[in-house]
């Protein structure tokens, strides 16, 4: 990574720009990531939102934003971003808006929109080379409606629609790879529990133009089943166990910004969450635990090859 203002935690912004008083759950990993991003990116932004947990951030007459916000619909936030970006460009081009009134366009959605319903609009926005930054807070399910399985749900996790003994039968979609296949400007995974890594990536993304994704794993106390105070610890375990690789894609190259060595066993991460409790009680599901570990190992073996 090139020169950065963020080397250590003490370099992080000491002023928090996003207002408190929002109705997200205590310990929300999604809000945490967004707040950290907002601190770095600043308030000369317009955040375009799709339906999800963050939609209620701005509920009349209360808004936590110093900058701007537009709620669209679940499927069309990237299209909303297209309209805002094009209009700002037109206004500036035609001299109807001074350049200093320009805003950075940021799309904010959960995994429900990013991995599913919003994928068509996202893909097309990247096709058009839209200059926008997309922050996806990934709590691995449809969080706002009660944690039903989404395409982002990891294998074997229990959700409201997969409450049986095996949990979710599918496997987490690789949104990072899908974005990368579009050859955008920048793709990165982040997590609020690693704020310096996140700040650097926001800084890096902010220096670029074009379509850029920041994909944040968002530990979710009610959805994943843990006490809010463990939110950061669980985020750290996601990274330490290798379940959530911290990486960037640029110009066809993937760089890992953190390589956990040694990797903590995935069990350490899984056993802290009620959604995986069935893998440990009443008896250990060795087969599934081994499979999850194997997949994580295989990923890192390839990385290190």
């Amino acid at each position: 990574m090139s020169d950065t203002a963020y080397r250590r935690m003490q370099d992080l912004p000491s002023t928090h720009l996003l207002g408190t008083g929002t109705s997200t759950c205590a310990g929300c990993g999604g809000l945490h990531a967004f707040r950290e991003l907002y601190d770095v990116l600043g308030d000369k932004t317009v955040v375009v939102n799709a339906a999800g947990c963050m939609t209620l951030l701005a509920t009349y007459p209360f808004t936590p934003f110093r900058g701007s916000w537009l709620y669209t619909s679940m499927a069309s936030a990237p299209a909303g971003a297209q309209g805002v970006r094009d209009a700002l460009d037109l206004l500036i081009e035609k001299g109807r808006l001074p350049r200093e009134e320009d805003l950075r366009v940021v799309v904010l959605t959960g995994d429900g929109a990013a991995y599913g319903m919003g994928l068509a609009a996202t893909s097309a926005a990247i096709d058009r080379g839209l200059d926008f930054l997309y922050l996806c807070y990934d709590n691995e399910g449809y969080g706002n409606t009660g944690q039903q399985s989404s395409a982002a749900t990891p294998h074997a996790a229990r959700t409201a629609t997969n409450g049986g003994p095996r949990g979710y039968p599918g496997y987490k979609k690789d949104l990072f790879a899908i974005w990368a296949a579009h050859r955008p400007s920048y793709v990165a995974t982040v997590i609020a529990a690693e704020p310096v890594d996140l700040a650097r990536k926001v800084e890096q993304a902010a220096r670029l133009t074009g379509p850029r994704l920041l994909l944040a794993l968002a530990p979710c106390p009610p959805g994943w089943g843990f006490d809010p105070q463990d939110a950061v610890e669980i985020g750290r375990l996601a990274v330490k166990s290798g379940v959530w690789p911290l990486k960037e894609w640029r110009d066809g190259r993937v760089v890992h910004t953190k390589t956990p060595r040694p990797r903590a066993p995935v069990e350490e991460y899984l056993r802290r969450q009620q959604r995986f409790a069935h893998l440990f009680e009443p008896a250990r599901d060795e087969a599934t635990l081994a499979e999850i570990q194997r997949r994580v190992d295989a990923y890192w073996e390839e990385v290190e090859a």
Partner: protein
Amino acid sequence: MYRIRFHGRGGHGIKTGARILGSAFFAEGFEVQDAPRYGAERRGAPLDASVRASRGPIRERGALRAPDLVVVADETLIPVRSAGVAAGLAAHTWFLIRSAAPAAVWRERMARPERVLALAAAADERAELPFLGSIAAAAAARLVGAISWPALEGALAREVAGFGAGAQAESRARARAAWDALAPHAGAVGEGPELLTAGGDPGWIDLPLDLAERAAPDVRVPLTSLEVKTGLWRTQRPVIEPDRCHGCAWICSSLCPDGAIAIAGGRPVIDYDHCKGCGVCVAVCPHHAIHVEREELARAGAQP
């Protein structure tokens, strides 16, 4: 008709409590309507649930008016306006508040000379929180008098079945304790009068045209969310011990999900108006300089 409302926070089992009471009434041959009312639907956020019970068909819809009994399972909700503890209050409404303070204190605080009761919280208060709904249901059933213990017990077993054997036993034990504690007032709460739904001027106006600049659903002022005191969700608060704090500040401040820890003069300052009490700062401080205090004690201590 009995009209009963429970108040608590997300995570207290209030919705289940209303269902327990509703099921118990139903088992005793009443017609029943029970429903939760969601606010922000977040853990810690205020919510209430209601039960209507009548020997005849129930035709009322919507929010309860003139409840016969209001059970406040979490006394910290009383000053929270949006919790609506006093909504639809009538002269005949009974209040039951779960609180260490005795009923006499609450009668004075609420300026209600009668029909106020207090139910003491258990010694293991935090462990009791998920069962407040069961406690409220048992208390209400005893106060109403028209529900037998077997009916309540059966309703409890049915409604809590999905939570596992441990939770069932726990619920039953705590419900029984509340049932017994309210024996002196058994049957005190009677059925409310038929509500007059007709007559009176509804106070209709002709809504004037407001120009779109005012009438679009927009907020033109930044940071109005600061007016929402999410600190009222807390049941416990983090407290920084200045002697143990190394003044690194950026750790707790950066890792607070809500950004409720500011840095002033190199020292962290918690914004108690907005801190939701998640406890992340307590968990991440490398010097263990932040500990947890029960919110009502902390608030009491903070008063001059």
